[in-house]
């Protein structure tokens, strides 16, 4: 039997089709930096989960006699204006500071991937409508959308999470669309179609796993942006409200102390945000580079 090149998928794709989850291990195995950053982020999640065990004090335990102190043996990072232990608040802060972006990006990714795959598959008028709707949404700054939603539901963590879940859809979809479109035009997709495999099965079992490396890379980068945006909303006073422990809020409340020459609360929270954002960004870039290479 002669191969027409139309029905037979390329060997690499064929391997990926069989294994289902493409090259997940290999990126981390080949790239030490990416592996290290993944472990670091995993540890952060652990810190969030184990906060009550790890934190030396309760996050809302005040000691007014030890207010606004610098680092000492009793308080490793010092205390805030109410005498609460900053290290403990930072540790508890990982919970809200990480949970928000994870929910936002989780929801946005599911919506974006669904929209991209369905519009690439169905095409035609539906595709054009989705494209138009996303570009209108994209032309609206996420922070402003969050502010409008907060105006309706009131200040707190819910409004910003809802708003950014919507605002991040076009942000992710924009990057995935060309990748999905290219994958759609591959001969193996035609082949599967001719074999009578349903569109649903092709999308879920074949297209999705094959664009997964790109999804993973861009979702990682978007996670960093979402973390900054949510912290920014809390910083301006519309997000997480006191006395909850959250990094953006801590930077804001610490500013009075900062101006009085006691920078500990603001600075430690700033460093926490910065370290996580940089770690996530570098990991995202590494994954994106690996996905690029893989796709060629």
């Amino acid at each position, binding site marked *: 039997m002669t191969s027409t090149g139309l029905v037979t998928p390329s060997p690499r794709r064929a391997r990926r089709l069989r294994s289902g989850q493409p090259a997940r291990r290999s990126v981390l195995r080949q790239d030490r930096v990416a592996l290290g950053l993944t472990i670091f982020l995993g540890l952060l999640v652990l810190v969030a989960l184990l906060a009550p065990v790890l934190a030396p004090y309760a996050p809302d335990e005040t000691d007014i006699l030890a207010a606004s102190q610098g680092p000492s043996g009793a308080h490793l990072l010092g205390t805030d204006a109410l005498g609460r232990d900053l290290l403990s608040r930072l540790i508890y802060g990982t919970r809200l500071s990480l949970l928000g972006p994870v929910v936002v990006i989780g929801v946005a990714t599911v919506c974006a991937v669904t929209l991209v795959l369905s519009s690439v598959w169905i095409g035609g008028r539906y595709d054009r409508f989705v494209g138009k709707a996303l570009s209108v949404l994209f032309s609206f700054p996420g922070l402003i959308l969050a502010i409008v939603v907060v105006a309706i539901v009131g200040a707190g963590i819910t409004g910003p999470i809802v708003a950014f879940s919507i605002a991040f859809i076009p942000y992710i979809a924009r990057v995935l669309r060309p990748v999905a479109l290219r994958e759609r035009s591959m001969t193996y997709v035609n082949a599967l179609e001719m074999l009578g495999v349903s569109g649903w099965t092709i999308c879920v079992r074949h297209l999705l796993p094959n664009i997964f490396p790109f999804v993973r890379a861009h979702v990682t980068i978007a996670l960093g942006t979402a973390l900054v945006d949510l912290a920014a909303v809390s910083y301006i006073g519309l997000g997480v409200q006191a006395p909850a422990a959250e990094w953006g809020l801590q930077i804001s409340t610490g500013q009075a102390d900062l101006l009085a020459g006691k920078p500990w609360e603001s600075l430690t929270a700033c460093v926490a*945000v910065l370290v996580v954002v940089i770690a996530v960004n570098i990991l995202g870039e590494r994954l994106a580079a690996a996905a690029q290479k893989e796709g060629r």
Partner: protein
Amino acid sequence: MRSVLKNVIGALVTILVASAVIFAAMQLVPGDPAAEIAGTDATATEVEQVRQNLGLDRPAWIRYFDWLGGFVTGDFGQSLQHRQSVLTLLKPRLGATLMLDLYATLLVAVVGIGLGVLAARNRRMSSTLTVVSSVFVGLPTFVAAIFLIQVFAISLGWFPALADTGDGLASTIHSLTLPAIALSLSWIALVAQISRASFREQLGREHVQTAVGRGLTKNAIFRRHVMRNGAAPIVSVISLTMGGLIAGSVVVERAFSIDGVGAFLVQSILRHDAEVVMAITMLIVVVFIAVTVIADLIQLAIDPRLRSRGVDR
């Protein structure tokens, strides 16, 4: 010409959609303006009277067109909290915010493109830029603000920690320096990266080799051939920047206690002052979209190829 028209019409439609969304959203804001204006000890009939006087008893779509018409003619309504016209309240704050955003845009354009040019022409600069900019691109505005306040306002005392936009141009510029830097840092890094890449790409092109062959000086080649041809992506990233700066100034105004539009917006939301929130969000949307359209038009102006083909992007 056709593509210009298409751009402008597309922008107007987007603005119209946004205005409807904003108006609809504000109908959901809790609180009854009529009851608030009438006061706490007003009877039900008095509240009803106020509602009729304000025209709040009319159907929503009539009020929407009324509001939109007002917005277009510069009548932004009345603030519930301040009992003053929104326009009067906005004017001084608009000045402060515009000043801050222009200052930051200037920094982004000059420093960002400048670094891009240096890095495109010098290998050492280029590798430094790669490392430094990857840190700064991810730097959140509020983190930058805190670090700048700590170093340049508190430790060194060169600039004020709280910006004062009141007296004199010189002192205003002086006190807006830290806010403008905080606002522009991450965008400078982005613009520097993109302009370096764009200039680099042009340097490798045949037309540049031809120019070298013709014996033109390096500077002349860079100015006339590399910078002009490499400008398109830089213009579009700077327009993106201006949009980002508008959102970012909400954060920076909080950081440096600047009484600008962003700070006013946050304040009005916390006080449920719907008219002010609508006016400011509409203004932001209009400016945001206008910047995008203008960038597209500049794109058409610097690249005649786009015009002749009639491509809309």
